[in-house]
């Protein structure tokens, strides 16, 4: 749905300094453009739980990070997320890939469609949903709104076809 250049442009509009990141088949397509951006540092992780704590450390040190992972990684990383955004009330922001939303051709009956949004709601995460190309600018708008209110937030991006 988006090119890496479009995503980098949006991150620049947000003032993001670090993208703490684990790729999937959609998000991974943006990695080259992020790596080519001199003003954005990509911080790859081995598993998603690490990502929230690393982003927290970057934030404490004065940077403007975001976490970019698939919804399956959101499921995996629940305790790390809970700790930094609820125990410590850090206004961290995530970009979450919504697996199979646009097509279930690869994974028919994918339960990511069942659980992703209820889990975001269960974690009290304010999210915007981006499922068409013209909604991309919602990401920066939502980020700015969350930063102004000192709250965490999520941009949920539909995946499943180009």
């Amino acid at each position: 749905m988006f090119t890496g250049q479009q995503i980098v442009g949006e991150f620049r509009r947000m003032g993001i300094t670090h993208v703490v990141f684990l790729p999937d088949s959609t998000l991974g397509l943006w990695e080259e453009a992020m790596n080519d951006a001199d003003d954005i540092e990509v911080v790859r992780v081995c598993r998603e739980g690490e990502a929230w704590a690393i982003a927290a450390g970057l934030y404490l040190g004065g940077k403007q990070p975001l976490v970019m992972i698939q919804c399956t990684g959101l499921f995996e990383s629940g305790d790390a997320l809970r700790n930094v955004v609820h125990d410590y009330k850090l206004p961290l922001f995530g970009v979450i890939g919504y697996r199979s939303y646009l097509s279930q051709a690869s994974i028919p009956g994918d339960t990511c469609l069942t659980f992703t949004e209820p889990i975001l709601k269960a974690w009290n995460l304010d999210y915007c949903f981006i499922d068409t190309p013209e909604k991309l600018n919602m990401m920066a708008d939502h980020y700015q709104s969350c930063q102004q209110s000192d709250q965490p937030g999520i941009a949920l991006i539909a995946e499943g076809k180009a």
Partner: protein
Amino acid sequence: MTAETNMTLIDCLNVLKEVRRDEAVISVMGTAREWSSLSSHPLDFIYVPSSMGQATSLGLGIAMAQPNRRVVVCQGDGSMLMNLGSLVTLSAHAPRNLTVLLFDNGVYEVTGIQKTLATPELRKDQQSVNYAEMAKACGFSTVFEIDELDTWKQSARECLDAEGPVFVVLKTAPMLDGGGPKSPGPAAQRIRDFAEALQSQ
């Protein structure tokens, strides 16, 4: 953990306190319990409550944000087992200013001294997991393994000054009456105070 070690967590942390200058020190679980009674420096972060295993990741983020500041992460082997992949992440990003102190006592001390699966008694092969070798295999080039207090006293400053990432295994005896750590105050306020100290000092 070697059953013969006489080195204690408190002894080791006292040495850290003696050699510490302006490093940021993150402590968690048992190390937080003891460090909070030994030190009250603005650059201490008592990571309680924590997400178990995430202290190394938190330390990496701080180290990357502030490359001119040494960051010291103090955690136990039980926490390390919760986030072994972070060793690969740490060595991949290779912050020159990060030291991880792993206090290896072979047990989950704060939950009742249950042995970890890295101890011989719970393993079919009856062999200890070697964290120092694990760190080397994950890409750490500077690794210390210490089981005597005098050696730690002689090496501690070097462990904080060496080019990171540095991984230090300190083999300690479990504290039978240790108990759980307590948060020294409201978590959200403490972390904001810590961030302010990081960004102002």
